[in-house]
Structure formats: structure tokens, C-alpha cells
């Protein structure tokens, strides 16, 4: 007996495929919106030739590098911002301003400055992650409950102890949340960058399908993007749960 909570995913998927099939045969031009079968066949071919894995791999590689760069640069800055009012006052306003500038808008500058090589992609992905991680880290660090710090002081903790044993652990949940959100922005950045200035990757795949009049490819690319995003987000969610068990904090799935 299939449990409803599992079955409903199946039900809604079938529902969507049905709607898709209907749309492809009635409202939309099948040359523009191919029916599910055509896409499935094309998908199978791409898996067989391994083509799809190459593109996914390239995109993931770019995200990974840009993301790690982002973490390494952003966390220290965020910590500094959380600890020091001066840093917060200096960095806060520009960051709040930049927050509204999506990584997509940085693409022209990145491409111009770094040419169409890998560096420009890393820059864009890095940009996508830094602001979020900085702000979340800063919030986490600054929200360390003062009572907790006082308790530690009463127990003989030095400022160094307090930072590493009280402040950072207290900030940890916030940092993780920031990391999770930032990852989403990274994917957004890499797809956009690949659509505009690349020769491989999921974004390129989606864009290329227009030029080569292969609309099935577009659907495959979009679907894989969603899948990869979903899987990485789930992985993140699961590892957060595991790491946060001792905090007994349930990071809400948003």
C-alpha cells in the first residue's frame, strides 16, 4: 500500500505531464512545445551519449568553485561585521544597496573584465553568494545572546574562548541558512552566465536549443536544472538537520 505522502508526488507529476501533453497538442505549436514523448526520447538519447552529464558536471564544477570562494571570503567579513559596530556601519549600507543588484546584472561587467573564460563565471557565482553569506553571518554573530556570553564569563572564559566557543556556535545556524540560500543564487548565476557567454553547461544547453531549433533540449535543460537544484537543496537540508541535532533547532523548510 503506497503511502499518500509518497503517492501524491506521483499524482502531481502525472497531472503535470497530462497538462503538458494537452497543451502541446492543443494550445501550443508542437514544434515549439514538443509533447512529453518526444522530450523523453531525446532525454534518453542524451543520457546514453553521456552528453547531459558533461553539461551538468561543468555547471556543478563552476558552482562549486565560485561557492567555495564565496564562503571563504564572506564568512570572515560577516564575522567582522557582526562583531564590530564600525564595520557594520561601513559595510552595511553598501551591502544593502548591492543586495538589490542581482548577479545577472553583473554578467556584462564580468565578461568584459575577465573575458569569456572560466574566471568570469567564477566571479559571477562568487558575487551571487557573498552578500547573502555576509549578511546572514553578521546577523548570527551579532545575535549571540548576551546572557550566554555573561554565563561564559562567569565560568572563566577568555575573550578568545568566548569567540570560538560561544559566538561561533551560536551563529552557526544562521550561517548555515545563509549558505543554503546563497547556493540558490549561485545556480541562478551560473545558468545566466552560461546562457550569455559559454559553450557548455546547463545554461548553454538551454540557450543553444533555441539556436539549433531543438526545443526538446530546452525542456530537458530546464528539468535537469530543477532536479539538480532540488537534490542539492535537499542534501543541504538533510545535512543541516544532522549538524543541528544538538541544537535541537529545526531549520524551517522555506
Amino acid at each position, binding site marked *: 500500500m503506497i503511502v499518500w505522502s509518497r503517492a501524491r508526488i506521483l499524482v*502531481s507529476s502525472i497531472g503535470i505531464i497530462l497538462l503538458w501533453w494537452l497543451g502541446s497538442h492543443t494550445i501550443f505549436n508542437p514544434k515549439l512545445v514538443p509533447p512529453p514523448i518526444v522530450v523523453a526520447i531525446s532525454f534518453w538519447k542524451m543520457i546514453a551519449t553521456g552528453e547531459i552529464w558533461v553539461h551538468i558536471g561543468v555547471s556543478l564544477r563552476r558552482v562549486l568553485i565560485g561557492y567555495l570562494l564565496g564562503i571563504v571570503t564572506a564568512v570572515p567579513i560577516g564575522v567582522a561585521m557582526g562583531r564590530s559596530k564600525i564595520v557594520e*556601519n*561601513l559595510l552595511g549600507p553598501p551591502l544593502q544597496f548591492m543586495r538589490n*543588484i542581482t548577479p*545577472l546584472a553583473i554578467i556584462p561587467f564580468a565578461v568584459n573584465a575577465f573575458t569569456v573564460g572560466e574566471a568570469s563565471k567564477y566571479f559571477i557565482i562568487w558575487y551571487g553568494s557573498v552578500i547573502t553569506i555576509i549578511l546572514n553571518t553578521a546577523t548570527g554573530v551579532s545575535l549571540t545572546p548576551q546572557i550566554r556570553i555573561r554565563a561564559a564569563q562567569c565560568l572563566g572564559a577568555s575573550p578568545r574562548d568566548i569567540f570560538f566557543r560561544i559566538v561561533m556556535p551560536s551563529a552557526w545556524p544562521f550561517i548555515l541558512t545563509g549558505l543554503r540560500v546563497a547556493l540558490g543564487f549561485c545556480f541562478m548565476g551560473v545558468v545566466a552566465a552560461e546562457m550569455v557567454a559559454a559553450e557548455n553547461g546547463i545554461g548553454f544547453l538551454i540557450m543553444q536549443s533555441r539556436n539549433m531549433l531543438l526545443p526538446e533540449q530546452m*525542456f530537458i535543460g530546464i528539468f535537469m*536544472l530543477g532536479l*539538480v537544484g532540488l537534490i542539492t537543496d535537499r542534501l543541504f537540508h538533510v545535512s543541516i538537520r544532522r549538524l543541528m541535532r544538538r541544537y535541537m533547532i529545526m531549520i524551517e523548510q522555506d
Partner: protein
Amino acid sequence: MDREKALYISISIAIILGTWWLTSGTLFHEAILPSPPQVAERFWEMIITAELLFHLGISLKRILIGGVLGCSLGFIIGTSMGGIKLMRDILEPPFHFFRNIPPVALVPLAITVLGIGETSKVSVIVYITIISMTLNCAAGMMSTPQIRIRAALCLGASPRDIFFRIVLPSAWPYILTGLRVAVGYSFMAVVAAEMIAADKGIGFLIMQSILIIHPREMVIGLVMLGGIGLLGDRIFLMAINRLMRRYMITMKEA
């Protein structure tokens, strides 16, 4: 804003301007990063000729139409999901899946199906706002404390009463937050849509510089994006805090 904060903002701006000025022409070629005076000159030109207003207006119009449509639909779907379990069960999986697909990835599809006109751009905005708004509203609807529902039952409330008089008002903070988030996403989506295939708008302004054609316009576009985005967000925040006073919730910036 107190004087200390104003001082720090001035210092930040000064440092940023200074760094910008120094790197332009030296680290970065002028065609990639024009100097502040060059940008200012073109900025002034664009204001006088109303060219800037034109592009801003186009983008804001798209955001407005797409945003209002998407948020309204998202609100209806999300709140209904709160009331009808079946809807919730069936719709939740696809929404969570599509949440991972950034609007950029769907721009080529939108163009293929809906052409290069306004419809495709607005539809991308509608897409992201519906998803975001639906998920936030649904979460809000599910957040009603059980005790509150029980209190209402004791006062003679029918299921209909409970939905409209208890669950919906309790969800109000989430709905407003959802709106604020959706506005942010709208800005992102409009840039995405205008980047790929447009001949006007802020995103276009930024994007057209990708082959080092109009670098000054790019900077102006970026500044406008950040500024207007920030302004919109702050206005929203103020409005929300005013409306939420009785809930005793104050939304902070981050």
C-alpha cells in the same frame, strides 16, 4: 538616521567612489569600467533627455503588471492551499520543484512560446512571483496556533468562520513578507527577461554593454537597479511594520 550612521555612510560612499575612480583606467580599462566623471556626464545626459526615465518606466511597468498579477494569483492559490488539504497535497511537490528553477532559465522558453514582446517578459515575472507568493501564503496559513483555532471553536465558530476570521488574519504577517520577497524577485526577473531579448528597460541598459559597447550605461543601469530596488524594499518594509504593529512584529532589514 542619526549623525553617526550618516557619517559612516558618507565614508563608505567616499571609499567606494575613490576605489572606483582609481581602478578605472588603471586596473580596468576605461571601456570596461568608466570613471565616475564619465558616468556622471552620461547620467546627466540621460536624465535631461528623459532616456533614463524611459527605460526605468518600461522596467517598472513590467514589474508592476507581472507583480500584481503573480502576487494576486499566488495569494489565491496559497491561501486556498491553506484551506483545502487536497490542493495542498497535490500542488506542493510541483511548486517546490519549480522553486529551484531560476526565472532566467525560463526566459528562452517564454520567448519561444510567447514571442519577443512584452508578454514573454511579464510572464517570467508572473512565474517567479506566483511560486514565491504561493509558498509563503501556504506556509502562513499553516502557521495558525492550534490553540487559537480551539478558542474560536469554543466561541461558536464554524469552519468558514475559522478560515476567514482566524487562519487568514493569523497568516497576514507571512503574506506581507511574501509580498516583500516577491517584489525583490520581480526586480531580478525583469533583469533576466530584459537581458536575453529586449531593446529597452534597465536590464537591457545593463546588458547591452556586454561587448564593451556602452559601459557608462551599464554602470548607470546597475546603480539605478540597486537604488530603486533598495528604495522599493525600504518602502515596503515601512508599510509592513506599520500594518503589523498590532501583531507586535517588527521586520528587520536583513
